[in-house]
């Protein structure tokens, strides 16, 4: 009875086995990291969980229900949100509206009630206000106040990463997939991001599945780590044991060197 479980997941792209019988379990409330060199299949794994790719075989269970073969929006409905490695924001909307889109699942205004927005007390007017208030809380949590009304297309890289995180939080997920949240950030921005990820885990109680290359961050915040390479599991365990595992060292640092300490 795992909170989130991947069972023997494989995906083939032509003859290439991008994921080869990957299995792991995530407990509720933990930060579970997936590490591996470039091309190991980490993002492919996320895309399978999300339903963007269809797995060739295997099963993904979320709260004991299978989500394999579901469409991305159904996966979101089940309570899984994500961020992307190469930021995927709605560039021509401002920060507020981007995060408002994260509230999409919770809003009921349709074409008719939206089209007849006759003022503050109409259904659509009230609903907009309620959800904007919710969005405001997320903006406060992630310190995005200064860019609230700016188009996200013009925001600096670090802020855009933050907006993406905010949008994922607005979905109120139970499981949050973070695909390299610290990629391309300077050390100060990284510190902030680590702080928020911990906040999200502790205060919001959201379980986090994390892909990250920054080993300091991974070792710092992960409860458990899964190391993969060429689509295959190398090892799984707590940060200490994964750090010292010879195969992990080999994958990251190459062979033929007995002195290195990762």
């Amino acid at each position, binding site marked *: 009875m795992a909170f989130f479980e991947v069972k023997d997941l494989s995906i083939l792209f032509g003859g290439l086995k991008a994921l080869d019988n990957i299995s792991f379990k995530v407990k509720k409330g933990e930060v579970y990291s997936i590490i591996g060199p470039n091309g190991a299949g980490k993002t492919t794994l996320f895309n399978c969980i999300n339903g963007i790719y269809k797995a060739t075989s295997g099963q993904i269970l979320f709260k004991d229900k299978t989500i394999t073969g579901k*469409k991305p*929006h159904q996966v979101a409905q089940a309570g899984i949100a*994500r961020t992307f490695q190469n930021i995927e924001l709605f560039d021509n909307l401002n920060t507020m509206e981007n995060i408002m889109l994260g509230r*999409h699942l919770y809003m009921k205004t349709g074409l008719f009630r939206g089209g007849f*927005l006759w003022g503050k007390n109409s259904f659509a007017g009230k609903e907009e*206000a309620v959800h904007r208030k919710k969005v405001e809380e997320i903006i406060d949590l992630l310190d995005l106040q200064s860019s609230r009304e700016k188009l996200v297309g013009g925001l600096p890289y670090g802020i855009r990463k933050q907006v993406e995180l905010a949008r994922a939080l*607005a979905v109120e997920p139970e499981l949050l997939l973070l695909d390299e949240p610290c990629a391309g950030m300077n050390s100060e921005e990284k510190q902030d991001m680590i702080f928020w990820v911990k906040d999200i885990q502790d205060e919001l109680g959201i379980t986090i599945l994390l892909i990250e290359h920054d080993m300091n961050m991974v070792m710092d915040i992960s409860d458990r780590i899964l190391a993969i390479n060429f689509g295959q599991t190398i090892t799984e365990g707590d940060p200490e044991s994964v750090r010292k595992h010879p195969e992990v060292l080999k994958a990251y640092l190459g062979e033929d060197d007995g002195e290195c300490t990762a």
Partner: protein
Amino acid sequence: MDMKRDYYEDVRIFTSGAVIFWTGILLLLLAIFPFVAKNYYVYVVNFMAINVIVVVGLNILVGYTGQISMGHAGFFAIGAYGTIVLMTQAHFPFLLALPSAGLIAAFIGFLLGLPALRLEGPYLAIATLGFGITTTQIIGKIQMFGERQGLHAPDLIIGGWHIKTDKDFYFLLIPITIAMVIIARNIIKTKVGRAFISIRDADIAASTIGVNLTYYKTLAFAVSAFYAAVGGGLYAFVLRFIEPELFSMFMSVTFLTMVVVGGLGSIMGSVAGACLLGFLDLQLRNILEIPYFGDWIRMLSESYFTLTGASNIQLIVFGLILIVIMLFEPLGIFGMWIRSKKYWLAWPF
């Protein structure tokens, strides 16, 4: 800098006193216009208003959802024929026939949206182009639709109000147009509109936050088809006579041109683009009657373009305007507005 005190202020229509003031002036001008203008210009404004309805709807599809359609003349024709046939054959009153024709078109738009789920860009353009051409061809073969001879619009009576002149029709058309524009704007500002925009900007990200791509893409087609059909139904009563040749491929291209010239993803831009090009479309037909210049154009056209003279000269000017706008202002009239607003806010710097 005006401060917002309320979340509702983000979505309301009247953002400041100045907007209310100018809207009031505009409504006043629209109200007195038919009493002071010549009948022909009332007809011109009616024509422009119909373009506004269609182009605003098309912008929801092209500008906001990022799906192209080159077949909107097809929906326009369905609206025009649907309204007339529902009135003459099924004896619907006009105010019921018009939205019914709109809903029929919306359903066909939904069906057209299904292949659009798999097609993008130029492929979708060709598919929709095919739809537009096919629709006119089919309509031209159906006896109930008058085949090639076309159909006459029946008398238009709403309640006890017998609408005979362009001026009468103006008072029916303008409120419908204003309502359609406001509804489009409200849709864009609320949940459905945001979902449309999210599909245009990053469809994969949109799907991972719960936007059902299938539903919203086909919905965009349906909404846009509804708008085109309502425009078409009204157009039938401006012309009073419709025939299949009217709803040509060129009409679809003209609608698309209006969207682009007005500005993709801007409701007010669409209104401006539809008015400007609708006006030009009518006025350029008289280009040969301008003294000297008209003769010169005719001579030029006879020696270089076609033997029959400059009958299609408005198409050439249309094309020129499109090229010039794309070169200097890719965001169209809306882009010019934003730029001049920025300039004057910062003036004199």
